[in-house]
Structure formats: C-alpha cells, structure tokens
C-alpha cells in the first residue's frame, strides 16, 4: 500500500505538471490578452500605450520565461496579482472556494441521499409502478437543463412567495447559509441524483442476480439484510466512481447554476477571468480545480480497497 501511495503521489504531481503546461499554453493561444481587452473596453487602439502595459505586466516576455516565473511563484505560495482588480490573486481566489465548496457539498449530499436509496428501491421493485415512476423522475433529472430548472425555480419563488433565493450578500449564520445554498444545490443535485439513481439501479440489478445473493436468501437472510448489506456493498463500487467524478465536476463546473442563482463562486469567477484574460487568476484557479479532481480520484481509489477487501494495491 505504501509503495502504491508513493507511486500515486508522483503520478499526481506529473498530472498537475501536465495540466499546468496545457492551461498556460492554451491561455496564450486564445486571441487577445488583458491589454487588448482593457483597451477594447475603452474603445481605444493606442498601440504604444498597449505595448507599455504589456511590458509592465511582463506579457512581452517569452512564454517559457513567463511559465517559469509563474511556477516559481506558485512553489513559494506567490500566486501573483489579478490583472483586473490589481489585488493579490490569492486574496481574490480564497474567499470563493468556501462558497463553491458549500454549494457543491450540499449538491453532492442531495444527490447521494436521494440517488442511492431510490436507485436501490427502483432495482428491488423492478418493473413495478414505483420503479416506473422513479425511472421517469431520473430521466427527467438527466434531460432538464440546469439553467431552465434554475430559472423555473426562481420564477416560482417570485410568483408564489414574492421573494427570490439568490445570493446578494454573504449569509450571516448557518441557517441562512443553508437556506441560501440548499435551493441551487437541489437544482444541481437533481441531475446528479438522477445519474446516481440510474447507475445504482443497474448495478444493483446485476448484483441481485448473483449466486451469493440467492445463497443468502436461501440461508434465510431478511430482504433488508440482503439488499443493503450483501447487494449494495458490492453494487456500490461504480457508484462511488461516479460520485467521485461528480464531486470533481461540481467544484469547477457549476457555471450555469452560479450564474442563474447569482452565486459568486469559482466557476463564474473563472469564466469572468477568462473573459478578461486575467492569466494569474485563470491559471491558479484551474490548477486548484485540477488538484481537487486529482485528490478526489485518489480518495476514490483508496475507498475501493476499504469497500471491497478483495482489491489489493501493490
């Protein structure tokens, strides 16, 4: 296990290095830089002034030099300055992480709490009325676009309650935070729970047909014991994989939800930073999201062994 962990650690570093090169080069391939955007916003074309600004920001240096400077700074905890706000990038990025983490965490909780049990019920009650209803619900969750569902929820709130659950100020306490994040989390979690529900159902159906399940029933084990102890534990491995993928996606991919519910999280900030070609923000944010994704994948791998003792790492 120890060797495996060390190997995985170095593999993680290699992956992050690859991502850093990719994001750095890709950003510079996209036409225009911050100077272009700033001058465009001012409707100006002063070439000399633009060149001066590019020089000030170090954008006229060779890409390799810029890359080394960035990685060197990153290694020392210096993320540079936002080109737009002119504040330290860390100061801009840090406050947004808990916002997205809360939203993503709640959405994941919603999707697991609803997705796994309903998937099990759907499999156990296969081809019954309840199974059909749950299948329709899960298909709806997969096919409804998040922006549409989000706007529908907002419109319903305005129409029926005369209020709107959007982020305008930081929540003051735990309960107001829970209220603020639970509605967008439910909108996002609905899609994720639908995915988890369908996967749990198909995985459970496969396991329920296995000989050892029949043996357990023959030995007089209760339905609950068979379904949740014997079957679910073995069916849950692919579900854990998907939960891991969903968790990584939720950290950086909630642009639509953050936009509709006006949540100042990571994804919206990233899109805004790309629009301004705010390289220090984009590079560091993408690296953070990549780090989270890599870590989650690693945790999922470790969890496999805990869930299924037959899996051994060497």
């Amino acid at each position, binding site marked *: 296990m120890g060797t495996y962990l060390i190997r995985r650690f170095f593999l993680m570093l290699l992956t992050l290095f690859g991502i850093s090169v990719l994001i750095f080069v890709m950003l510079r391939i996209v036409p225009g830089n911050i100077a272009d955007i*700033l001058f465009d916003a001012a409707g100006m074309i002063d070439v000399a002034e633009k060149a001066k600004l590019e020089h000030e920001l170090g954008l006229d240096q060779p890409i390799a030099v810029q890359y080394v400077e960035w990685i060197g700074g990153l290694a020392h905890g210096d993320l540079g300055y936002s080109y737009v706000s002119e504040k330290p990038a860390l100061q801009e990025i840090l406050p947004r992480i808990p916002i997205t983490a809360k939203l993503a965490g709640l959405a994941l909780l919603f999707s697991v709490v609803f997705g796994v049990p309903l998937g099990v019920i759907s499999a156990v009650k296969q081809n019954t009325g309840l199974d059909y209803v749950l299948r329709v619900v899960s298909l709806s969750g997969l096919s409804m676009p998040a922006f549409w569902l989000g706007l529908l929820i907002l419109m319903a709130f305005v129409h029926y309650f005369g209020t*709107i659950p959007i982020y*305008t100020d930081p929540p003051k306490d735990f309960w107001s935070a829970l209220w603020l994040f639970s509605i967008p989390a439910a909108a996002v979690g609905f899609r994720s729970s639908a995915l988890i529900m369908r996967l749990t159902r198909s995985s459970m159906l496969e396991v329920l047909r296995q000989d050892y399940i029949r043996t357990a029933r023959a030995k007089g084990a209760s339905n609950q014991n068979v379904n949740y102890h014997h079957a679910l534990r073995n069916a849950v491995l692919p579900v854990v994989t998907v939960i891991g993928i969903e968790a990584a996606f939720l950290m950086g991919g909630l642009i639509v939800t953050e936009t509709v519910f006006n949540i100042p999280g990571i994804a919206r900030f990233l899109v805004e930073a790309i629009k301004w070609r705010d390289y220090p923000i984009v590079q560091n944010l993408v690296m953070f999201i990549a780090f989270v994704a890599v870590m989650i994948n690693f945790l999922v791998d470790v969890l496999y062994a805990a869930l299924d003792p037959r899996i051994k790492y060497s």
Partner: protein
Amino acid sequence: MRSKYLALAAAILAGAAVSTAQSAEPKHGGILHIYHRETPPSLSIHEEATFSVNAPAMGIYNNLIIYDQHKPQTSIDTIVPELATSWSWSKDNLNLTFKLRSGVKWHDGGAFTGKDVKCTFDLLQGKAQDKFRKDPRKGWYDNLGDVTVNGDDEVTFHLKRPQPSFIAMLASGYTPIYPCHVSAAQMRTHPIGTGPFKFVEMKQNESIKLVRNPDYWKKGLPYLDGIEYTIIPNRATAVLAFVAGKVDMTFPTEMTAALEKDIKQQDPTAVCEIKPINVNTNLIVNRDKPPFNNPDLRQAMALSLDRKSMIDIILQGQGDMGGSLLPPPEGVWGLPPDQLKTLPGYGDVQKDREKARAIMTKLGYSASNPLKIKVSTRNLATYRDPAAVLIDQFKTIFIDAELEPVESSAWFAKVARGDYQVGLNLTGNGIDDPDQAFYENYACGSERNYTHYCNKELEKLFDQQSAETDIAMRKKLVWEIDKKIQEDVARPILFHARTGTCWKPYVKNMTIESNSAYNGYRYEDVWLDK
C-alpha cells in the same frame, strides 16, 4: 347613506393628500440597492469608457461643474457649479477661470485645492509624472494648453483656440477631479473623491458598496446612507430580483422594450422610463479597400438601408432615425426630420433602392452576379442582431453578404488595421455636443475615425462651429456638417436606440437623462420614501 360614502371618500382623499405632502419631504436614511450588469474594470472614471463605471462611481467624485442632475436634457444651458462656485471666460474666449469652493475635503481628510484641478488635467494630458494605465479621452483636451493655479481657490484653463463648448466636457460625468496626493493606481483600486458617497469596497462578481460621506460639502446631503450595487450579469435573474424587491432599481438604461413590458406586467407599481442613450449603431465601410474605395458603391450601400424596419425588428420601435448627433426632441444638436428626409437613404426606401440597384448594375453587379462581401462585427448580441438585418437589406441591391462575428477583444485592433470590408459598430457619445462627436469620429487621423474618412474642408467647419458662441449660428453650422457627413457616406447611422430604466415607486428624485447615458449618476439627493 350616500353622504356617509362621500364623507368616507373625502376622508380618504384628505389622508392621501396628507400622505403625499409628507412623502414630498425628503427623508434621510436607507440603502439604495441597484443591480449592476457586470463587474466594472475599475472605478477610476478617467481610465474607463463605459457607463458600467460612471453609474457606480459618479457618486464618489465631484466635477468643477456638472450638468444639472434633474434636467433630463443636458446642454450648456443646464450646467451648474460643483467644486467651482463660478466661472468666467476672457474676452478672447481663450482663458476660462474658475473660482473654487473652499472648505471641501477629500474622503481621506485632505483639503481640496486648485492644485488638485491642475493635477487632474496634467494626468489627462500625459504631462504628470504619474500615468494612467489608459487614457481614453485624452483627445477631449487636445485644445487645452495648460491649467494654471492662482492660489488655492482659483484656476485658469488656457485654450489654444477659442472653444466655448469646452465647458460641456468639463461638466460630463467623465470629468471628475482627482486628488493630487493619491496615485492613479490607487484610484483604480480604492478611489478617493470629494463626492456624496465614499467608496467602501468592490468585489468582483459580487458587489460595489458606497457609504454616505458625512463631511459632504453640501450640508444635509446625501439623503441615502449608502448605495449598494449587486452584480447580477444574468438579465433574467436581475429582472426577477427587481420584481421580487431584492433591488430597488434596475441598472440604468439596461431594459429593452420587451423587458420593460415584462416588468410592468409583473410589478405594475414599477416606475419605468424608456429614453435615448446617445449611442448610435452605424455602418463602417473600409474606403481604402477595393471595391469599397468607389464612392458610388458606398452610396448604393447607404441607399439600401431601411432604418424604420431595422428599428421595428430589433428595438420593437424604440429607436430613432438620425444623423451623427442624437435627433431632436431629446437631442440638442441633431438634424431635424425635414432636413433628414433629404439625405440619401432617409427618404422613400423603395425609390432609394431602385437608385441603388441602378448604381450596382452600372458597376456590373446583378442578381445572378452579386457582390460578395463580409460584414464584420463584434460577437455580441447588440452588434450581431442589427448586422443580420443589414445583411438581409443588402440582398435587395445585389450584395451577398456573410456575417463575420469577431471576438470582442480583437474587434478594435482589427478595425484599426483596416482588416475588414464592411462592419457594423456602435458609437456612444459621452456628451451631447458636436465637438466631441465630430473631432472624435470624423476628424482626419482621429483614433476613433474607424473608416479613415478625411475631409480637410469640413474640418475647417468643425473648428468654425467649435468657436461659435451664438447657439443658433452654431446649430446651423452643425447641421451643415452633419448633412455633409451623411452625404459623403462617412459612417451611415442606422439608428439611435432607446432603452429603459425601472425603479420602485418609493425611490424618489430619480432623473434619467434623455440625451446621455454617462452623466447623471451623482444621486446626492435621491431618497427613499420607506
């Protein structure tokens, strides 16, 4: 029984009258919540060129002089003193002297003096040691020789040639006075002004917060405790937030006619105004590139335009036909309708198109052999939509055009390089004054003269109208120039759009300017009747 009802009605009316009388008295307190359409690049007004900056930032600053914030039509006649108490011209109209208000303090406690005025204009002219990152209105002050300080309470602007309308630029929301002791860089991140509101913070994608300046030199003002702009870029969410009462006001001039209708349906108490914003949509033709270097072809293109149908399709009728200056009644200097009708492309559309087809046939084009072109424009809906209609209208005169959407960041650079055939552009005028519009957009060599139109004879008229002190005489000259610009197909104006602003009925003393979108956001005497 009837008399009882009458008595009740009278009592209700009397109560309403008392309540109106009470509410007419301004109240102190409350935070005005407005949604903002985007995070502005900074709140340093001098470095930016969008009213996304002016709207939240104007409350932080003061000018020497300012357009009266409660007269919707801004003009030289509506200018009132602000940091200056009075102004006077020398006999030769070359020196403009301002007496300055004493006892005014910057938000950080320093005293405002004439040196701050000089520093501001030195920065704008690039003469100061400190520099702006960008200086989009440097050209406004080309005619300014120098600013001299005569003690703490007086400054004189020395002009190179007489320019009576110079004060129009000083009165713009674009011309606040900056403090000498604060760097240009700090003004971008934490602006210091003398205005009714102090800057608290700006968080990207979240909010901009301003708080009441308790030491404001206008005693008793501002009425509001502060203004908070919540940044809501998604328009659907923003409209719902307004309807639900999460914000008291929409972002100024951000509502289309359809959205305004939607708001009124959902909240009939909302107060909404649709007005011109002095931003025109125009056609730019690269006159250096064949075959567009042929004036006949450019003439045919101008004759193909059906402006009314464009306004109906794109703006649901909320737009105006005009020349390079905003048309009356809201515009002060625009060509009147009777003169506009005589210009190519502004009369009978069918007849004009027949003329255009005749020109095209003469040039060798026909339905079977159309002229194939590209219409380039910024990849934004406000640009793309009219470009699509334009392409459709070109088809009527044997022009087969293809839309080329250009990434926003590359647009001005592409136009400046002349790397386009035909383009569609939007031009916003900071003030409703011919000097700004003519020198900026049509003068030979001007940075924003995207089509490189150059008429030296006309430029003499630019100077002549600029120096003219008689308003009626100046207007005559301005119309003559505008007609010539349109006849030369320098940059055909497709339409001047109108847009809307809505606020809740308890927001009082709110005035939306009708010939500018850049000058009316001081909000010092806006109050909340709550």
